[in-house]
């Protein structure tokens, strides 16, 4: 019927019809989705494709490369100022470190005495953020370290201020991490002041975490520091996660509505640290053994 309107259309359709192609493609992509959702079997394909599409991602981040070039041209005076500031900061930190070394040794000795195993010093790998997720509802970042650098799935990610997230997928040269503010992310925490354990969940807002599981009589205050509790085995214990910013008590509700501000700088900063040895059990036992040896040589006061 349409043939007189559209001369493009061939009289005899060669190859499968459009509807058949549609059904084929839809079935294929549904199968992909099902496989990707319920199994890990597609991860190699995904990471191969991601490596192949790397140039596109690199090109997409060119505006930032250009901005970085601008930084190369910053004036000498600025650099000198920055240098001075950094020197001072380094001095301060070194000063604090002296005490830290003593405290760490003491802590190790005491822990060894208690025969508890806790790792105080983790190995770090510095990574750079290549890009952030363009989906505003998903908080992912792409890092410039991949499988070749020893990055593994589930590896914790911190910045200078606190826990940032964890690695969720690893490619050959890059990896992507889930930020703690992603709505799919939860992290076991404890209140630093009294050790109260709970879970902090992301909400999809970069400056807010929610703590939905604390009962109305829980001992929390605004300004309390939340640190990772290490339960669940994914994050090392004792790193800052956030600071409690709001507490709402709705009369008649059993749970408090508590919000916390993430300690890590989720919106800025380029360099992040990947915590290397999170295999807490094996590593820390070895460390505790090491620590107990010098402890015995130290004369008791």
């Amino acid at each position, binding site marked *: 019927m*349409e043939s007189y*309107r*559209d*001369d*493009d259309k061939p009289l005899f359709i060669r190859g499968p019809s*459009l*509807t058949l*192609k*549609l059904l084929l*493609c*839809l079935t*294929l*992509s*549904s*199968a*992909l*989705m099902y*496989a*990707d*959702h319920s199994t890990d079997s*597609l991860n190699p*394909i*995904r990471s191969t*494709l*991601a490596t192949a*599409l790397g140039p*596109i*991602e690199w*090109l*997409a*981040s060119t*505006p*930032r490369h250009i901005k970085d070039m601008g930084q190369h041209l910053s004036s000498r005076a600025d650099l000198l100022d920055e240098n001075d500031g950094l020197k001072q900061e380094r001095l301060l930190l070194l000063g604090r470190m002296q005490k830290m070394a003593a405290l760490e040794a003491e802590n190790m000795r005491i822990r060894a005495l208690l025969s508890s195993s806790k790792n105080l010093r983790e190995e770090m790998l510095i990574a750079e953020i290549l*890009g*952030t*997720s*363009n*989906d*505003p*509802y*998903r908080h*992912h970042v792409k890092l410039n370290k991949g499988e070749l650098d020893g990055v593994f799935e589930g590896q914790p990610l911190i910045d200078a201020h606190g826990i940032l997230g964890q690695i969720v*997928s690893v490619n050959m040269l890059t990896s*992507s991490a889930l930020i703690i503010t992603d*709505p*799919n992310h939860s992290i076991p925490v404890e209140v630093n002041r009294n050790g109260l354990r709970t879970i902090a969940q992301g909400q*999809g807002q*970069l400056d807010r975490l929610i703590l939905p599981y604390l009962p109305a009589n829980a001992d929390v205050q605004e300004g309390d520091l939340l640190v990772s509790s290490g339960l669940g085995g994914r994050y090392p214990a004792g790193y800052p996660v956030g600071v409690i910013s709001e507490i709402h008590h709705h009369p008649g509700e059993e749970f408090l509505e508590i919000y916390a501000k993430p300690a890590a700088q989720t*919106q800025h900063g380029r360099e992040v640290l990947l915590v290397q040895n999170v295999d807490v059990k094996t590593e820390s036992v070895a460390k505790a053994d090491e620590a107990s040896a010098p402890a015995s040589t130290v004369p008791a006061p």
Partner: protein
Amino acid sequence: MSRKDHYPGYIVLLSLLVALILSHMPLPDPISAARPALVLLVAIYWTQFLPTAFGLLAAMLLGIMVDVLSGSLLGQHAFAFVLICYVIAKLRDSMRMFPWWQQGLVLAPLLGLYEFILFWMDGVSGREADTMWRWLPIVSTALCWPLLCSLLLPFRSTVRH
């Protein structure tokens, strides 16, 4: 006498590449919710104007690329791309009746369907998130259509034979 549109081959690849790059460029937070679905728009353009070269399989492969780049469920964008391109292929003759600046309006409901499919898949796979601004890309993508047409139409050469 039949009419056939021709485009240089490189322009098809280049447009797809540029769309892929642009749609993964970082945007400031306040406007990132309104990021237009440029890759889909370019796919729609070629489905409509160059149906012999750009079929459903190409749409699916493009969708998989978007899935990989955006880290979504593998096949999610592919599914939506295939469905939308199928509808466009079916509507091709009717779409030609409209001047190209009105075609943007015709596209809006389709883009709504696209966003809904993505949203629905997100929900099914347990990745649901804030939904308040999910409709913004529909508007921004429809607004980009005249722009895309004015960019690509100059490359068209019509052959009559």
